[in-house]
């Protein structure tokens, strides 16, 4: 496009200006105040880039740059086709199209305002940012509205509009109240999905315990739910200890204060407790008090209950067994069927599959290889059964009756030569002969029984008592045996986590213990060699939760406790 421009001052040669004229060959003619515009109009009302004239569909067309105002033939336009004779008014300048024919130079006559003050530099040039389109107000509003549009409006909509929730929340890229989530859900809670309201039932209210027990139905309470102790938990929520949306995700707060808030002064809260006050493990934990089994009365079968010796009283186990760890752990070994044998702790003590407790010790599995129950050392067939005294007597009686019957001469008549075994020539024993045989067998059995029970075999390990006034076999009683299995039922200890240390590292007195009354549980000082308080940096920092749990078995459903809180 070739454009011929005639510029003349409006109203003739006013102000000493002359008519200027130049020809440009451009694809489009730019009009504006800026220095590089093809037609430069020095008018504060004209934008730096105001308009463009270019051929369009065989005609000439003027287009506004952005929202600048152009007046074509007296009418405000942003786009207009131009023909010969049309006038365009931009600011105070009038442009007349003199020629707009195809294949010929376009001629524009520009009538400059006479008052054009080229010397007023501040008016013609934007000299500061304030004069530009930059606007702190505009950007502030845009940002505030943007923040509301992304983080508030859709979130509130999802929070309050039940039908819209799943649609909004399920899409990762659609803003919803998931943008209010402070951290990810714990992996075990992922199955809840994005349903915030599964736990957050009401706005501006803490997540309630009932939201937890809706799924965790079997969770047990800390105290017996049938007692008034439940009231001590009236001010506490599941969420006090179980905090969700944490990074990194951890559902159980490992903070000893959660326990010691009550347990540091439990007696003030619950006067009838036998628990001692506890602080931090490092310095304010009482010494261990192993729980022991005690027989309740003398009923048969025996009943047992657990007791915990009061503080300061030495614990003694009354298992009715006599066992010397020292004897069995002698460094030179202990006499065994094949000579002396050195025993290790693990020859008898084996952890159960959880690694928490030890499997029970049994005569058959652990003792019988050395401790033979034969009453005749030379006859292996003369072993009595273990665990049932009546069967012992039956075995003895049967043995001696067999001996009586099998001997050619009745053993009770050996003193008189020529006497013959009854029935030697007859098929049937007389009643008198039968009585004599039984009496002899009973007499022999009682002799052996006394030896076994009171002198040699049973008494080595068991406590045998005489029943006052009783005679015969009924006079002996082997006191029932009960070995404590769970010495510290309120604490969790895993042998499996401690297998790299020797047993005697913790059970220090085992090798020297001669009596079975000795309780060989480690004292707290042994644990403290490695375990420190919850903030200890020189040892393994140990909080309450390392050994203790809040929800204790057998205390009753937590849900029952919540109901009791509500309806005391």
């Amino acid at each position, binding site marked *: 496009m070739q454009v011929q421009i005639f510029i003349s001052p409006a109203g003739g040669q006013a102000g000493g200006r002359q008519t200027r004229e130049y020809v440009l*060959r451009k694809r489009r003619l730019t009009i504006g105040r800026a220095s590089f515009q093809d037609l*430069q109009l020095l008018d504060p009302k004209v934008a730096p880039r105001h308009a463009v004239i270019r051929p369009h569909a065989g005609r000439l067309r003027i287009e506004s740059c952005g929202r600048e105002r152009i007046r074509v033939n007296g009418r405000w336009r942003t786009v207009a086709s131009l023909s010969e004779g049309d006038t365009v008014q931009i600011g105070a300048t009038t442009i007349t199209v003199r020629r707009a024919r195809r294949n010929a130079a376009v001629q524009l006559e520009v009538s400059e305002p006479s008052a054009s003050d080229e010397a007023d530099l501040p008016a013609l*040039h934007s000299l500061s940012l304030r004069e530009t389109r930059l606007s702190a107000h505009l950007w502030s509003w845009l940002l505030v509205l943007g923040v509301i549009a992304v983080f508030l409006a859709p979130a509130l909509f999802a929070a309050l509009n039940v039908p819209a929730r799943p649609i909004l929340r399920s899409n990762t890229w659609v803003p919803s109240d998931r943008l209010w989530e402070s*951290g990810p859900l714990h992996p075990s809670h992922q199955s809840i999905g994005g349903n915030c309201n599964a736990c957050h039932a009401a706005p501006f209210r803490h997540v309630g315990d009932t939201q937890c027990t809706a799924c965790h139905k079997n969770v047990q309470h800390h105290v017996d739910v049938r007692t008034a102790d439940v009231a001590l938990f009236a001010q506490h929520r599941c969420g006090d200890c179980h905090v969700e949306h944490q990074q990194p995700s951890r559902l159980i*707060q490992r903070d000893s204060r959660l326990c010691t808030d009550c347990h540091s002064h439990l007696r003030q809260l619950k006067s009838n407790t036998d628990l001692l006050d506890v602080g931090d493990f490092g310095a304010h934990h009482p010494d261990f008090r192993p729980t022991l089994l005690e027989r309740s009365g003398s009923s048969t079968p025996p009943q047992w209950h657990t007791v915990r010796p009061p503080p300061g009283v030495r614990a003694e186990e009354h298992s009715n067994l006599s066992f010397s760890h020292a004897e069995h752990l002698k460094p030179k070994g202990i006499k065994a069927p094949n000579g002396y044998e050195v025993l290790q702790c693990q020859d008898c003590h084996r952890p159960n599959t959880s690694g928490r407790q030890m499997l029970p010790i049994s005569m058959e599995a652990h003792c019988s290889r050395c401790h033979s129950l034969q009453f005749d050392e030379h006859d292996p067939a003369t072993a009595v059964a273990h665990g049932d005294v009546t069967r012992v007597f039956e075995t003895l009686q049967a043995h001696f009756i067999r001996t009586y019957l099998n001997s050619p001469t009745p053993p009770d008549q050996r003193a008189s030569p020529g006497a013959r075994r009854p029935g030697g020539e007859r098929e049937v024993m007389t009643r008198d002969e039968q009585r004599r045989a039984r009496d002899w067998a009973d007499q022999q059995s009682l002799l052996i029984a006394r030896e076994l029970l009171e002198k040699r075999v049973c008494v080595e390990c068991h406590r045998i008592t005489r029943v006052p006034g009783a005679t015969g076999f009924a006079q002996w009683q082997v006191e029932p045996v009960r070995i404590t299995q769970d010495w510290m039922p309120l604490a969790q200890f895993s042998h499996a986590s401690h297998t790299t240390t020797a047993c005697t590292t913790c059970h220090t007195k085992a090798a020297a213990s001669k009596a079975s009354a000795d309780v060989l549980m480690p004292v707290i000082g042994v644990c403290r060699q490695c375990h420190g308080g919850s903030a200890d940096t020189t040892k393994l920092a140990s909080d309450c939760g390392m050994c203790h749990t809040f929800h204790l078995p057998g205390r009753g459903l937590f849900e029952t406790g919540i109901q009791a809180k509500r309806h005391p």
Partner: protein
Amino acid sequence: MHASFINYRNYRYGFSALALCLGAVLAYVIDARREAQSGGTWLGYTLGTVAAVLIVYLALYGVRRRSFRSPSGSASGWLSAHIYLGVATLCIAALHCAFEFGRNVHTAAFVLLLLVVVSGGWGVYVYARYPGLISRQRGNLSRETLLEQLSKLDGRARALASTLDNRIQALVDHAIRRTHLGGGVWEQLRGRDLSAILIPDAGRGAAFAQIVSNEGQHVLIQRLAQEHAAAHDATFDARLQELLEVAGEKAVLVGKLQKDIQLQGLLQFWLYLHLPLCFGLLAALLIHVLAVFFYW
């Protein structure tokens, strides 16, 4: 640093802010040894409240600086407190959230706070550095004076050119008309001389014109120099010489003005980020608090 807002009353607010930060860090370290920290612990709530109060207080600086007759302390003191407490707020907010970040409104609020503090830090830098630079650059003259000098030079150039032939007159006129100062945001901040000049397009024929860059008035000077080399008349030559000197002076002056506009622009530009970000932060902060207690 000569800026009084930095060392106001011997760094009074600097030390206060430092003490505040150290106190918060100490509390955090002590508490973190006992329990895992997050915004939801007691310390988290406390630090969050402190940070929120600080943000509102810092935002009120915008109100304070508009009321010059405020009885509450000197403007310099307020600015000093604004700067140091702003940095402290960022530290406290980071401890408040226990450095837990995610794709949520809470982190959005923190990021906005970070951007506000960073843009403010830029403001501190430019206010400490640029005012001295600007006045040195202008030779301790005001911009108005420089603009007046420019108008006078243009007047002189026109007067001189009017005594010479039409060609030179047109050349000078076009150079003056198309002298560039300031411009849009980018043009101001970039500070490049976008002056142009309309000259005959020799390649297309005498009637054609072209618009070319006249950065540093070099095209004008070059053309005048050519005329000067071809001149034989002593009067003509002397006037051309004077015109050349005027053009040279103008080139220096336009460069100065352009640099001045650029520095002033840079001096102010950070505020166009700081203010909107501040309002965005206030909005995000309110939503953050609402969200925390809505889903408590």
